[in-house]
């Protein structure tokens, strides 16, 4: 039966149930971008989900083949535009791996600071939009959203001072970073993270002591340990399901081995567990930022200073895969080089893409209201899903 017909009829089930096909998205207040879910409902209960992606496809991987190693990092930001720093980092790390380029320690530390600030900003947006999903734009959710946006703004201000941009940075380049920190930035960052640290306490007080919030999240959207591993989710989702896996720990890159931080793990696997994981990550990111600022070594910020023209980065024949722990999970970039100034082939492993694949497994059986709560707890960014 063609798709369009299904959506317009009410199917009468033989079990005395009426099924309603409801189209949620791609334009829907809580589709987090452009995502379409075709829900099969029995009353309020979801019995089936058909997830449709691809509304934001921009041929990113083809685009990567047409741009040089100097040009592409700025475009890499646009895969996961909410956490642009990590995608850039994945791309340049893959190039560095093929070409065996050393990155100066100062640049490694700067990359860590940028990545962790980015994680804070991204989690701020996640918390706000997730609460919007559950509380509505005309309710308590909007209050949390406006609070978190206020804090995200402070982080974006710091990143703007660092790179001149607020959303898509172009901070990383092959061999190091493009910019060094401006004068007085160190103190400002410390002030910002200290402020956010105090605010996180307020969010926790506002949400965890709120019976309704707990009722909406605990036991909802449970991803079992087995399911998490079978589907291949990563980031806060897999850590919320009891698997202690973090790329920063499992395969330290960019001198993450120097820093002392805790990888939070929760075993419940529900929305609340994922929320707890991210709340701890907030604090751990702040810790890492502080340590990196304390131990920031002197020296050059790039092993290839002055690389400006597009043909200057030449990469030998070979292939390489680099992965980093983004705000949403493992972001990987696979590159094949044929020795020219542009990659022969590239492939992204988007964290949101793999995480989103878990939805059809966990949504059926929940109420319509839970669909948006689960969706928000997965925290997808569709730039990264569709690429």
């Amino acid at each position, binding site marked *: 039966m063609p798709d369009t017909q299904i959506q317009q009829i009410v199917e009468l089930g033989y079990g005395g149930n009426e099924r309603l096909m409801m189209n949620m998205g791609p334009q829907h207040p809580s589709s987090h971008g452009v995502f379409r879910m075709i829900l099969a409902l029995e009353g309020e209960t979801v019995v089936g989900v058909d997830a449709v992606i691809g509304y934001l496809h921009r041929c990113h991987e083809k685009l990567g083949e047409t741009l040089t190693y100097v040009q592409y990092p700025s475009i890499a930001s646009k895969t996961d535009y909410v956490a642009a720093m990590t995608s850039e980092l994945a791309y340049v790390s893959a190039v560095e791996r093929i070409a065996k380029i050393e990155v100066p320690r100062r640049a490694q530390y700067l990359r860590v600071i940028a990545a962790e600030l980015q994680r804070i900003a991204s989690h701020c947006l996640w918390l706000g939009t997730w609460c919007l999903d*559950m509380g509505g734009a005309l309710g308590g959710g909007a209050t949390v959203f406006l609070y978190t946006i206020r804090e995200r703004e402070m982080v974006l201000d710091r990143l703007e001072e660092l790179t001149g941009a607020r959303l898509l940075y172009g901070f990383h380049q092959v061999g190091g970073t493009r910019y060094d920190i401006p004068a007085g930035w160190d103190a400002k960052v410390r002030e910002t993270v200290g402020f956010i640290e105090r605010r996180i306490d307020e969010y926790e007080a506002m949400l965890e002591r709120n019976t309704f919030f707990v009722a909406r999240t605990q036991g909802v959207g449970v991803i079992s340990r087995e399911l998490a591993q079978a589907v291949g989710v990563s980031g806060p989702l897999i850590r919320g399901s009891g698997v202690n896996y973090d790329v920063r720990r499992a395969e330290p890159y960019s001198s993450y081995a120097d820093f002392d931080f805790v990888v939070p793990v929760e075993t419940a696997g529900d929305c609340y567990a994922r929320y707890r994981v991210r709340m701890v990550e907030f604090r751990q990111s702040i810790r890492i930022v502080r340590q990196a600022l304390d131990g920031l070594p002197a020296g050059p910020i790039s092993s290839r200073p002055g690389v400006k023209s597009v043909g200057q980065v030449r990469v030998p024949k070979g292939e390489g895969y680099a992965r980093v722990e983004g705000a949403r999970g493992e972001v990987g970039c696979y590159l094949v080089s044929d020795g020219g100034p542009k990659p022969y082939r590239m492939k992204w492993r988007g964290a949101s893409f793999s995480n989103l694949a878990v939805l059809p497994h966990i949504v059926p059986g929940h109420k319509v209201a839970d669909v948006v709560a689960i969706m928000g707890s997965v925290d997808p960014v569709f730039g990264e899903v569709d690429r």
Partner: protein
Amino acid sequence: MALPPVAWHALVAFVVLNAVVLLVTYVTLLERKFAARMQSRIGPYYVGRPHGWLQPIADALKLMIKEDIVPAAADRGVYNLAPVVFLVPCMLIFATIPFAPGLGVADLNIGVLFFLAVSSLEIVGLFMGGWGSNNKYALLSAMRAVNQIISYDLPFVFAALVPVLLAGSLQMSAIVDAQQGLAFVFYPVLGQLAFVAYLVATLAAENRVPFDILEAESELVAGFRVEYSGMKFALIQLGEYAHMLGTSFLGALLFLGGWLGPGPAWLGPFWFLGKALLIFLIVTWVRWSFVRIRVDQILAISWKLLLPATLVLLLATGLVVATRGAGGV
């Protein structure tokens, strides 16, 4: 020159109706400013600088000149009638509210009963809107509406009956008079519990967060009014806020002593308005602090907690009144 009674009543009704509409318009501004404060924003500002005093008027004008769209597949009759059916009961409840002794459209001897009966009629309009729109979001919302109103009208009525029992009358002015010495909210235990139950049930009856599953804009987009635009949308909005204000007035009457308060008698209506707005602000405060709960949780709260609790409360009140006698404190 004395007016004939019919003309007099018509005049009073006209004045009250317009006053209510004006009040409702400005209550939206109050809520927006209050919410803005909570969220560290400014809220309406530019229209009617410096505090957005003209914003409600601008909104009303904007809604009036918007295109009125009727979906092609809608049930036209039901769809067009629904906003009116929704609005009328919401406005009618103000008929029985006395704003001061003798100042009101009709101080019926069954005022509270009339109020409760009429205010629950709004559900018909809601359901018509959700059904007539021929939209799946609206349909789901209409189903939720019926579920919710049926579940919460009972606790709402039981909570409102506690002061009625204590005062020994269904007439609103008599209930206020009975609170001469002590407002019922200060009545030991019974009054306070009933007030809390009343507030919770009010939230649900008004479809406010955390019980706003009808509107649920993150799930059902805008619920039963997703297809409404222009003036029809404005009517629904007006009805919703009128209902909210009406229940706030009723709460002020039943629990906070209505127009009673220190100062000369002419201050009475202002006391009354102030108390009603206080209740309205409490409801707003709750709205902007909580997340929405799920439909099954809402039903569970009502049937498993609120309904038994209010029943026991009513029974206890009955026992107290039986031993002590009704009328006053």
